[in-house]
């Protein structure tokens, strides 16, 4: 049962990623990314990371991709705003030629590791309590730095989004 689930979820995630780079309209690309992110969340659940399964759905699919779709609809992108990509498939083939040897290298290195049973366990591995203990005991400095980073991003987006009427007026007077 878990094997079938894993097979379907991996097909969906890779298919969503392929839809992202093949469609021309960014709205279809965003929907492909949404499918891919939700299937990766399912694979997280199969790997016993139940807290990260919820974080992936709430933060990635619920916040980041919804913001993305909201901005795509807000900008009201028409067909003529999209860039012309005449040699898209040529560049995709070139990129695949570059990336496939790297993939083969990594997969061969991973295949040499001794195999273990990766099925679901009944322990509290990956629950919110043990993760919180590890986070606040071993990773406290990184946690504080991430909180400062989020504050900087908040201030930065407010500065970028505020109206700059004064500067526009001055430029109008000069020209």
């Amino acid at each position, binding site marked *: 049962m878990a094997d079938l689930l894993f097979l379907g979820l991996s097909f969906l*995630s890779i298919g969503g*990623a392929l839809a992202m*780079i093949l469609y021309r309209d960014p709205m279809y*690309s965003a929907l492909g990314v949404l499918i891919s992110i939700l299937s990766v969340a399912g694979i997280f659940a199969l790997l016993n990371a139940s807290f990260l399964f919820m974080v992936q759905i709430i933060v990635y699919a619920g916040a980041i991709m919804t913001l993305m779709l909201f901005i795509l609809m807000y900008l009201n992108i028409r067909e003529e705003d*999209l860039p012309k990509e005449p040699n898209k498939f040529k560049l995709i083939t070139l990129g695949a030629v570059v990336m496939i040897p790297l993939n083969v290298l990594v997969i061969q290195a991973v295949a040499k590791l001794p195999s273990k049973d*990766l099925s679901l366990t009944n322990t509290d591995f990956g629950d919110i309590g043990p993760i919180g203990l590890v986070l606040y005991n071993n990773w406290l400095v990184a946690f504080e730095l*991430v909180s400062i*980073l989020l504050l900087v991003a908040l201030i930065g987006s407010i500065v970028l989004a505020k109206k700059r009427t004064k500067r526009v007026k001055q430029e109008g007077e000069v020209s």
Partner: protein
Amino acid sequence: MISLTSLAFVSMALFSIGAIGVISRRNIFVIYMSLEMMLNGINLFLITFARYHFNMDPQVITIMVIAIAAAEAAIFLSIIILLFRSKKSLDTDVFTTLTQGEK
């Protein structure tokens, strides 16, 4: 079926598709989504090895990566709005200069 090799295949496939998207597309939204895809592949790799070694540190690193992706989304999308308003295009070749005035 849920083996280390198949999980590594899925995560490396997601990472490479993201890298190919950054290389080959010119639409700035698709480039941003490709960056998200690369972060997703790396997250899956970290979670795989967290399960393999039965150690919870990679899961904490994944939480950090998701927080950084959220911060990146806020900044990147507001910059995209400003660029689209000034240039009326999504082509990355138009954004070669980041000055405000017309030159």
